[in-house]
């Protein structure tokens, strides 16, 4: 089996990959909104909050906000890249063999 072929196909059709990715993100957002609107209410009615998991208990107010984790993920990624790259270029970065 040639594993490289499907990857090559995806590389050649980057537009389709991007569309698929946007669909996935949109799907996950819709899914989260549905859970926030219906899931919590349904869970409360059936007393399912006893299950000890991170997501079925509300620990911080932000967890009640629909799509909070999407915003969290995106902001954290951008911050990590911008802050660390900035720090690297201004303070930390040295040429290879700096210690030699």
């Amino acid at each position: 089996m040639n594993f490289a072929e499907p990857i090559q196909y995806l590389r050649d059709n980057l537009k389709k990959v991007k569309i698929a990715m946007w669909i996935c993100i949109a799907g996950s957002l819709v899914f989260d909104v549905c859970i926030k609107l219906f899931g919590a209410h349904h869970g409360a009615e059936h007393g399912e909050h006893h299950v000890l998991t991170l997501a079925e208990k509300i620990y911080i107010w932000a967890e009640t906000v629909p799509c909070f984790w999407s915003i969290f993920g995106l902001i954290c990624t951008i911050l990590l890249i911008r802050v660390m790259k900035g720090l690297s270029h201004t303070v930390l970065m040295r040429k290879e063999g700096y210690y030699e």
Partner: protein
Amino acid sequence: MNNFIHPAIFFIFGALLIPLIPKKFKKIFLLGLPLIAFYCVLTMKTGVYGAYNYLDFNIVFGRVDRLSIVFAHVFTLMSFIGVLFGIHVEDDSQHIASYFYVGGSLGVVFAGDYLTVFIFWEMMALASTFLIWFRREPASLKAGQRYLLMHIFGGLLLLGGIFLHYQNTGTIAFVQLFPENAGIAEYLILAGFALNAAVFPLHAWLPDAYPEATVTGAVFMCAFTTKTAVYVLARGFQGFEVLAIMGTVMTIYGVCYATIENDMRRILSYHIISQVGYMVAGVGIGGALAINGACAHAYAHILYKALLFMGAGSVLMMTGTSKLNELGGLYKYMPLTMIFYIIGGISISGFPFFSGFVSKSMVIAGAAEGGHQYLMMLMLLAAVGTFLSVGLKLPYFAFFGKDCGIKPKEPPKNMLWAMGIAAFLCFIIGVYPKALYVLLPYKEAALEFHPYNMAHMSETLQILLCTGLGFFLLLKRLQPEDKINLDFDWFYRNILNGFIWFDQNIIQKIDSVWGNVWKNVGIKVLMMSIARFFAWFDRWAIDGVVDNVAYGTRWIGDKARKIQTGNLQNYLALAILMIFVIVGVHWFL
């Protein structure tokens, strides 16, 4: 079967036998011992074995409980995978070092007293140093030297703590300590353990040394040193708040550096710090859920981190480089390696149906349950960074990026099999977490934890997908650069350089000046004066006495010879004279 056979025995004695085994049986021997050791762990029963009294110390080689079993389980399993990965290596010394290393780790895991812990702890440090040196590159020799110095420093902290602890308590039993009773001794022991766990700011040895180890050595090293440290922290320091905070700092610190690093194995090394941070935080938070989470994450981490190091090591071995700026487009030539690496990458990132999802969420839930919501949020931030650097950046630039022109082959089959087994285990744990949960120290609490629920899946998918979005939006900014980044090793490298400078410029100058002073004043004036005095004394005092005694004897002999005339009358007169002299003397006295 309830007899305890210490699994470390197979590795330590096995290491000694390796050079004696004929070549055609060597592979069977090398692979067989980890399997036997794994079987011993599977069949052992809880209890205390191998307890001896030596010099009034209670030495315990085999304390078996649920905590030690879970670590021994994954250590022996990992040793088989690691040996399989490196079975093509014909250098016996590498196998011997890795066997001693695993033996040391297992010795620590079953130790019931600090003395035994210390002995096996140092065995691990020494054996792992050789796994760096055996790469036989100038950079490896230097990195190994720094690694050894750091671990000797950690060992001294530990030994100092053990001595003080014994002085204070009169016991060397390795048991749970409590923050409210902890003093200098206990914090010294904690610092010794924390150095091996690469707790910030004692972490810099790890990304300094691991990228310089041999390809197979790095696979072993990523699994044992830090996880043994997590074990001893879980054994002795549960609920120490400082660990919860430092562990969370580690989770962030590791991913921050992984985002900007260029070398594959250095990125993965920083990720060890990050992932071990979850475990250290879990131990510090304490409680059944967090401790279970720390152990589960250690178990899962050993497998997926080894898988990632195997993937990176394969790339290094087949292309000759592990720098992302020199790699790209490897999916065409190393597709199996790429697939296995990606399984490791999505496992560490906590994708549903892979091991990281069922273990990391337990630690995070433990933090939230313990009332540490801010730690929970920081750990989730670290999870974002993990996916960004190991799940996206590294495979993108190594396997999918612009073709680098290198056309490597897949690594040898044994390496692919080892990666395949590790990848399979990552998947199995992900889809059937109960297999891992039943091994955990607090089994009931573990079985009550359900990682698969709608809200958790939604949260995870959102974080991962939006991290992916952020990555592609800022892809240009993440282009790897042929540079290094300063870390805390800057301090100890400069301290070391400062020490060498001080030695070369101050100590040697003082030595040189003192040498001249000694030569001109000490030798020429002082020593020569003393020598002259002794020469004079020898000539006039020693020789004078000896010579004059000789002269005197000769003179007396000369005179006495004249008395001996041979006339009997003279002798008789002399005898009578002597009698008169004696009587006279006696009379007057």
